[in-house]
């Protein structure tokens, strides 16, 4: 019975949101701003109720629902019963809708917004909500019954039974779907055909908000893949990973242009364009993940009809928004010339490279699809392609991050700039020598990227030193929050470069049959294998390996990687064990036992340099984003 109430609330969301575009067309009400606000609140309430009901059904293990029967199990620990809600297609799309209504609700509650803009934005947002709820009800209703009801469920995919997966999808969706409100505001600005700075200022915090969530979501996903999949890597250039990276890249570009658009009315059309593209890329990502058109390790069992629906949605939304954009963009293009050597110039260049990067990644991701349709051959584009594109583009992006912040607005002069930062240049030279001295034996590429990372960090810190004055005595002037957030985000990127380079180029891998008491050396670690023990847990049995770790012949600790076999569906998963230090991770996974010899097991031991800095880098990025949002809240009080 309760499931039917869930469906009822979903239908209510559909009907409610349909008024979002019916009202303005038929002119039902005098005051349509209030109507739109009410609709936003109503749909948020209805979707939340529906989501809570689905969660409740998961908790009480109502196996008469198809979704629960397929994705849950009575033996499952309670926390995974709850996360099982978004561990499947239907539930995760409902979460998507919930987040979308949540952003509409937040925007509706925000005061001090021009009422015309508010009305139009909510109008667009409610129309999007209508489309998504229609999608849910037509193709992926989470409350569908199965008959006869099953006695027990098939279990949640064991890979998803992991703490990382509790928070990764919600954050990713907050970022993905957060771009919907950015899209709605941009479309509203285009409809109103008004290029006032005030409108762009309203757009700004939402960009920062969705970007922060997206960074966090991608970071968490990468972290999960690193320790859960047991492949020892953090990024595989898999189509689904690329799908999340694309909107991140365009919204990173957006973060930079919005600053100019609010400051001096230039690049406004570019800002609007990027807002639209970011949301479309999020939709594209959903299409790629949900339709299963691409070969991806992330592809979970899927259904082509859904893919067709999302594709139609994507085409319709992009056609309409680009048409509107082309019709109105003239109003938003400025006559002002942008000087190449100026802050604006640096930001524009950064944008060109960011956009090139996302375009090429997009090309590499969907090229196999085209190739299949046009040439009828099955191909895939491997990691080398993406690396070969990313590496050269890192050069201008790094230079921009280093020197961009030191450029003056409007017009600057290279000679002038050089004399302003001559101390920095000297320090950079010393830093480069140090990096080279520490790494000169390593591969040349790693030295270059480590230098990039060190350069960005140095110049970012140098930026803060500006606020230090020595005369008459040492005083630290107040550093503005925006400088802090920018420095933090740039340092974050630098740390990610450091970690990614270490983990991919400098990794040491050892795979072998390791006998009990045999010692394997990886870098300055010694790994001694003690044996395997069988351990039984609530819903799985585990073969647990015991490894003693010695560093420079001193005992550190014992690591216990596992191979788990889940009771309900006999699926096997590998749980790696990781010892993290600031210089690198020791990463151990176990494989099969040797069929011919007793007490001998396949073990895989990696030494991944500087991996921990990837996660710390993500933290810096998120901190940067949060400081910006905090600043906005403070200003608006």
């Amino acid at each position, binding site marked *: 019975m309760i499931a039917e109430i869930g469906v009822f609330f979903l239908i209510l969301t559909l009907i409610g949101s349909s008024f979002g575009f019916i009202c303005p067309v038929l002119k039902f009400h005098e005051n349509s701003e209030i109507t739109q606000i009410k609709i936003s609140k109503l749909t948020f309430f209805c979707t939340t109720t529906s989501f809570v009901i689905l969660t409740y059904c998961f908790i009480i293990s109502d196996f008469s629902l198809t979704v629960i029967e397929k994705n849950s199990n009575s033996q499952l620990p309670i926390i995974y019963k709850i996360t099982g809600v978004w561990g499947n297609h239907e539930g995760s799309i409902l979460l998507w809708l919930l987040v979308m209504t949540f952003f509409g609700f937040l925007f509706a509650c925000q005061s001090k917004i021009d009422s015309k803009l508010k009305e139009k934005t909510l109008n667009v947002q409610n129309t999007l909500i209508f489309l998504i709820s229609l999608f849910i009800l037509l193709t992926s209703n989470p409350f569908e019954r199965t008959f006869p009801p099953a006695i027990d469920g098939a279990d949640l995919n064991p890979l998803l039974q992991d703490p990382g997966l509790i928070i990764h999808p919600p954050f990713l969706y907050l970022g993905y779907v957060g771009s919907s409100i950015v899209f709605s505001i941009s479309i509203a600005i285009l409809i109103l055909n008004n290029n006032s700075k005030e409108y762009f200022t309203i757009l700004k915090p939402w960009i920062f908000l969705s970007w922060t969530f997206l960074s966090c979501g991608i970071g968490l996903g990468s972290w999960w893949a690193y320790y859960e999949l047991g492949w020892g890597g953090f990024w595989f250039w898999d189509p689904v990973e690329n799908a999340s990276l694309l909107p991140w890249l365009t919204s990173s570009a957006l973060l930079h242009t919005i600053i100019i658009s609010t400051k001096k009315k230039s690049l406004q059309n570019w800002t609007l364009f990027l807002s639209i593209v970011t949301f479309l890329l999020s939709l594209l990502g959903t299409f790629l993940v949900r339709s299963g058109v691409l070969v991806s390790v992330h592809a979970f069992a899927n259904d082509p009809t859904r893919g067709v629906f999302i594709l139609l949605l994507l085409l319709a939304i992009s056609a309409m928004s680009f048409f509107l954009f082309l019709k109105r963009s003239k109003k938003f293009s400025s006559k002002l010339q942008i000087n190449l050597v100026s802050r604006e110039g640096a930001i524009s260049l950064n944008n060109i490279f960011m956009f090139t990067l996302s375009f090429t990644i997009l090309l590499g991701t969907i090229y196999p699809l085209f190739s299949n349709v046009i040439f009828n051959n099955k191909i895939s584009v491997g990691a080398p392609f993406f690396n070969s594109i990313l590496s050269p583009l890192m050069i201008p992006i790094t230079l921009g991050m280093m020197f961009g912040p030191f450029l003056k607005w409007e017009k600057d002069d290279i000679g002038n700039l050089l004399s302003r930062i001559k101390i920095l240049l000297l320090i950079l030279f010393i830093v480069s020598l140090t990096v080279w001295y520490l790494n000169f034996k390593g591969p040349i590429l790693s030295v270059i990227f480590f230098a990039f990372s060190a350069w960005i960090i140095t110049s970012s810190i140098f930026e803060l030193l500006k606020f230090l004055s020595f005369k008459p005595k040492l005083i630290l002037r107040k550093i503005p929050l925006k400088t802090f957030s920018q420095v933090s985000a740039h340092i974050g990127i630098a740390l990610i470069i450091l970690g990614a380079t270490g983990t991919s180029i400098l990794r040491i891998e050892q795979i072998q049959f390791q006998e009990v008491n045999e010692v394997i050396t990886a870098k300055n670690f010694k790994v001694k294998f003690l044996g395997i023990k069988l351990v039984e847990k609530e819903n799985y049995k585990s073969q647990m390996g015991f490894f003693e770790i010695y560093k420079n012949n001193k005992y550190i600790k014992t690591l216990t990687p596992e191979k788990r076999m889940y009771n309900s569906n006999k699926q096997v998963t590998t749980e790696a064990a990781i010892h993290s230090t600031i210089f690198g991770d020791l990463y151990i*996974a176990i494989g099969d036992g040797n069929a011919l010899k007793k007490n001998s097991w396949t073990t*895989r031991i990696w030494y991944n340099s500087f991996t921990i800095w990837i996660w710390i880098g993500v933290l810096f990025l998120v901190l940067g984003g949060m400081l910006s949002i905090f600043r906005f809240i403070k200003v608006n009080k």
Partner: protein
Amino acid sequence: MKLKTQRFFKVTSLLIIFLIGSSILFYNLKNNLVFFFSPSEILEKKISSLENVRLGGMVKKGSIKKKETEVGEKKVQETIFTITDFEREIFVYYVGILPDLFSEGQGVVVEGNLINENRFNAKIVLAKHDENYMPPELDNIVKPTN
């Protein structure tokens, strides 16, 4: 006139940059493509043993053999199994740890080189996240079993 020439130079230089960029891009793409074949296709096509390709099909029941071999000074596990599309078959040799969901009678995709008609050296055995998931590439090959 001067403005016009200026604009002409701007447009041409942009065009040249764009052309150079996209040709580098497509050259790169072309070099990094990995083609996918079924056992029948790969045996028909005379693929060079230097070319990196993907091979997909079913792991033949009862064909998985594990043994110990030596790489350098280390002892490692080598797995030999047969990939079939129910018309032709190929022996696949793989040194390393197999993904968790690898088993007999299941669909599999491997990447590596075709050494000769009987032997495919796999560098990667592709893992997947879900036991019910079948790569779209395998769809036509695997259906007959169900």
